[in-house]
C-alpha cells in the first residue's frame, strides 16, 4: 500500500512537532547509474520526502539550474522508464516517500495507463505534473487514485481561494505551495509572500503544506518551517550535483548538504552552497 506513505510521514512530522524536509533531484542527473546512491544519500541525510524530476527537453517552469540538470540527465540517456526503474531499485532500501515530478508530455508518450501501472508497481507514492493543473488532469486523476498514487497539485500566490480549495479536494498527500512567482531557482532572500500564501491555505484546508522555490540555506528552511509542514529544496541540491558530477564523493557531499540544510550538520566543505 504505497498511497498512504506520504500521509503517514506528515502525521509523524506533526506528532513530533518537527518541520519536514523535501529534497528534489532530477532523476538521472548526472547519470542514472549513480541515481540509487543519490536517493539513498538524501534518505541518510534525513529527507522526509524525495522528489524525483523526470527529465524533459522543454522544462518551461524551471530555472537555469534545473534546466542544466535535465540536460545532464537527458544526455546520459535518462527516460521516464529509467526514473521508474530507479524508484523500483531503491524502494526496498529507502522508506522515504518518493514523489515523481514531471511535465505532461513524457507521461503521455509513455502512455497514461501503462505509466500509472508501472509507477505504482515500482512504489511511487505521489505524482506532480507541472503543466497539468487539476482541470487538465482528465482521466489521469482517477487512475492515480485507483492505483494508490497521490496526485499532488501546485498552489501559487496567484491561486484563488476556489483553486486552493479545489487542489486540496482533488489532491492527496500534500499541497505544494510556490512561495513566489517565477521559475525554480535559488534566491539569496526568500519571498515574504510565503507567509501570506501559507496563511491563506490554512484558512481553507488543514492538508499538509510544503513550500518551495528559492530555498537554499538552513535559515530559509527554518523560515519556511514557521509557515508550513515542510520546505522543499531543489535547485541548491541540483547545483551541488552539477558541480560535483563524476566525483565519487558526490553521495557523501549530498548527504552532508541535506544535514546542513536541515540544521543538523556543519556547513559542507568548499563553501557550499
Amino acid at each position, binding site marked *: 500500500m504505497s498511497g498512504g506513505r506520504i500521509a503517514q510521514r506528515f502525521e509523524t512530522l506533526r506528532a513530533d512537532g518537527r518541520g519536514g524536509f523535501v529534497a528534489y533531484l532530477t532523476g538521472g542527473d548526472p547519470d542514472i547509474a549513480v541515481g540509487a546512491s543519490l536517493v539513498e544519500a538524501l534518505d541518510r541525510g534525513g529527507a522526509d520526502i524525495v522528489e524525483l524530476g523526470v527529465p*524533459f*527537453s*522543454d*522544462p*518551461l*517552469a524551471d*530555472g537555469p539550474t534545473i*534546466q542544466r540538470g535535465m540536460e545532464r540527465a*537527458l544526455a546520459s540517456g535518462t*527516460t*521516464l*522508464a529509467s526514473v521508474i526503474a530507479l524508484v523500483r531499485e531503491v524502494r526496498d532500501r529507502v522508506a522515504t516517500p518518493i514523489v515523481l515530478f514531471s*511535465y*505532461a*508530455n*513524457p*507521461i*503521455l*508518450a*509513455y502512455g497514461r495507463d501503462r505509466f500509472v501501472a508501472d509507477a505504482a508497481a515500482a512504489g511511487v507514492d505521489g505524482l506532480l505534473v*507541472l*503543466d*497539468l*493543473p487539476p*482541470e*487538465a488532469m482528465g482521466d489521469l486523476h482517477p487512475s492515480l487514485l485507483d492505483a494508490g498514487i497521490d496526485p499532488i*497539485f*501546485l*498552489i*501559487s*500566490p*496567484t*491561486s*484563488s481561494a476556489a*483553486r486552493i480549495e479545489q*487542489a486540496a479536494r482533488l489532491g492527496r498527500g500534500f499541497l505544494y505551495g*510556490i512561495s513566489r*512567482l*517565477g*521559475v525554480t531557482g535559488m534566491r539569496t532572500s526568500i519571498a515574504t509572500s510565503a507567509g501570506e500564501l501559507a496563511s491563506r491555505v490554512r484558512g481553507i484546508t488543514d492538508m499538509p503544506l510544503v513550500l518551495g522555490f528559492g530555498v537554499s540555506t538552513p535559515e530559509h528552511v527554518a523560515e519556511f518551517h514557521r509557515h508550513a509542514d515542510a520546505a522543499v529544496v531543489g535547485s541548491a541540491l541540483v547545483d551541488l550535483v552539477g558541480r560535483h558530477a563524476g566525483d565519487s564523493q558526490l553521495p557523501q557531499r549530498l548527504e552532508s548538504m541535506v544535514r546542513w540544510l536541515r540544521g543538523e550538520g556543519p556547513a559542507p566543505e568548499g563553501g557550499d552552497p
Partner: protein
Amino acid sequence: MTSREPAAMAPPSFRFGRRDPAPGGWFGEFGGRFVPETLIAPLEELEARYFELRSDPAFLSEFDRLLGSFVGRPTPLWEATRFAEACGGARVFLKREDLAHTGAHKINNALGQALLARRMGKRRIVAETGAGQHGVATATVCALLGLECRVYMGALDMERQALNVFRMRLLGAEVVGVEGGGRTLKDAINEAMRDWVGRIDDTAYLLGSALGPHPYPLMVREFQSVIGHEARAQIHTAIGRDPDAVVACVGGGSNAIGLFDPFIENPKVQLIGVEAGGTAIEPGRHAARFAGGTPGVLQGTRTLLLQDEHGNILSTDSVSAGLDYAAVGPEHAMLAASGRTTYAHASDAEALAAFQDLSRLEGLVPALETAHGIAHARVVARRLGPDGVVLVNLSGRGDKDVQSVASRFPELGTRDEGDAP
C-alpha cells in the same frame, strides 16, 4: 486604387466571435490550457478581458483605426501573372501582407494584443521571436503605445536574422539571446514564458503565433483574420467568386489561419498549409509536423509535435527561422484531423528557388518563410490548370533574409545562362 478603399476592410463583426473553441480552449481534441498553476489566473484574466473587449465597439474601432492609418491596411491583392505563367497553370493572386507596416502580417496580432495589454493596465511586454518579424512588430507597437518591451530570440536565429535584431533595438526593445536547446523559436518561447511567470503583475506576454495555452490560439487567429476577410472581398471584386485553393506557409500557423478563416465555411475552397521540409523528412532535419508529428503537449497546448518516443521534443531544421518549430497551432491540427485543410511541405532548396523566382518574375522578394508557400503554390497552380485560381499569402517581405541568403547561397545573386533576358 480601389483595393485601398476602406470598404475592403471587413468590419469586426465578420472577424470576431465566429468560431470559438469549446470551453477551455478546445479545438476538437487539440488546444486546451496546459500550464503551471501560476499562469492559470493571468490566463483566465486575459481570456475574460479578451472576450469582453472583442465585442467592445470602442476597442474594435481603435484597433481598426490603427490597422488602417498605422499598419496601412487594407493591404492590396496582386495578381502575379508572370509567376503564374511560369507555373503553367492557374491564375495566382498574392495577398500583400509584405506591405503591412514592418513588412509582415505579424503586426496585425501584435497591435491587437498590445492594445489589449494596455487596457489591462500592463506596462511591460515580453515576446518571443523566430525570424524576428514578430519581435519587430512587437517592438514597433510598444514604441507606438509607450510600453516597455523585451524580446527573447534564439541565439541561432539572432545570427541568421541580424537585421531584425538591429531593428528591434533601434525601436527601443531589449533583445535577449537564448542559448538553451536548439537556440531557436521553441527555446525563445520557453524563456518568454519563464519571464512572464515571474512578472505577471505588470507584464503581458505577447505571443506571436496561433499557439500556446487558451486563449492565445483563438485571439491570434481573430486578430489575424483581417487578412482573410480583406482578401476574400478583394478576390470577389477581381473574379467574382472564391478561389479554388488558398495557400499559406505554416510555422505556428498565424498567417495561414488568418487567411483561411473566411474560407473555412466554403468546402469547395481547398485550404493548404505549407510546412518547412528542411533538408529531408527525417528526424531533426525538417519542421513538417504533419509529415512526422504525433499528438502531445508542449508550451501550453495539445497539438501535433515532432517528438521522440520518450516525449522529448526533437530538434528541427529549416532555412527559415520562422518555420523552424516543433509544434503547430492546435486549430490547424483540428482542421487537418477533420480533413478540412491539408498540409504539404517545401524543402529548403524549393523555398530558395521560389525566393529567387518571385523576385525575378514579379519584383517581389518574399520572406524565406513565405517562399515555402510560394514554392508549393506552383504545384497547386499546375494541378488546378488554367481555369483555376490560387490565392497565396505573401505573408512577409524578404529584406531580412537577403544578407543571410547572400552569404550562404551566393550563387543566387548571379545570373546563370538559363535566365530570361
